[in-house]
């Protein structure tokens, strides 16, 4: 089941600054909301998002409960070489998701 939407340009010129957009399905339950019977639902959030480019970390974000559900994160990086971008989200209750994208840099 598709859980994340990644948007990376397929091709770029060496040295270009490219935009990366990521969207992942996750409730980001903050731990303060009561359910319909009045019981507070426990916290269940993604707390870390890391992007690596051919194995080297290029972006890291610590997320807190104030990040909206289905977290959207957009950032940029310099297109240095062709290869693989890896996106990893980790969070409460052992949550872990990994997505990859390839880029051709000429």
């Amino acid at each position: 089941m598709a859980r994340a939407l990644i948007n990376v340009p397929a091709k770029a010129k060496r040295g270009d600054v490219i935009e990366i957009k990521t969207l992942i399905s996750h409730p980001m339950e903050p731990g303060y909301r009561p359910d319909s019977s009045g019981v507070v639902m426990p916290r269940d959030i993604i707390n870390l998002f890391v992007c690596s480019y051919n194995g080297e970390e290029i972006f890291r974000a610590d997320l807190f409960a104030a990040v909206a559900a289905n977290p959207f994160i957009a950032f940029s990086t310099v297109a240095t070489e062709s290869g693989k971008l890896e996106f990893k989200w980790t969070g409460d209750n052992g949550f872990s998701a990994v997505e990859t994208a390839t880029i051709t840099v000429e």
Partner: protein
Amino acid sequence: MSNALHATRRRFLVDSAGLIAGIGLVSVAAIEPARATPAMMDAAIKKVVGGAALRKGKVKLDLAPLIENGNTVPLAVSVESPMSAEDYVKAIHVFNEKNPQPNVVSVHIGPRAGKASISTRIRLADTQRVIAIAEMSDGTFWSDEAEVVVTLAACLEGI
């Protein structure tokens, strides 16, 4: 469902615009979670900035002044910086004043970013101030802040 439960839920939805803060439940099972205060936000900022001065400038915090729904608020931060090996933005930290917790997101970048510009979507429980702080490679801290008004969905729902 009793009328009391309806009223309680309505009250809850009214008082916490973002449906997050859980403030002011007027029922028997009332829970009042800690709400961030400006002092808590200052403390959280101090943890990151330490004793350094927080300078105004270089940072641009983009938030609509009037928010339709506090559950999903688009936020963008950009920082003027050459992002070279000698002079770059190390991190961008976002804080808020009135959610239960003061931290929103902390982003760590470097020269490989090309430009210091991020966007995301956050939750805001109430009309409040939001502050974005950029941590530079030379150890200085720069900031921008915005005051946003958070409105609520018209037909309060509960289902």
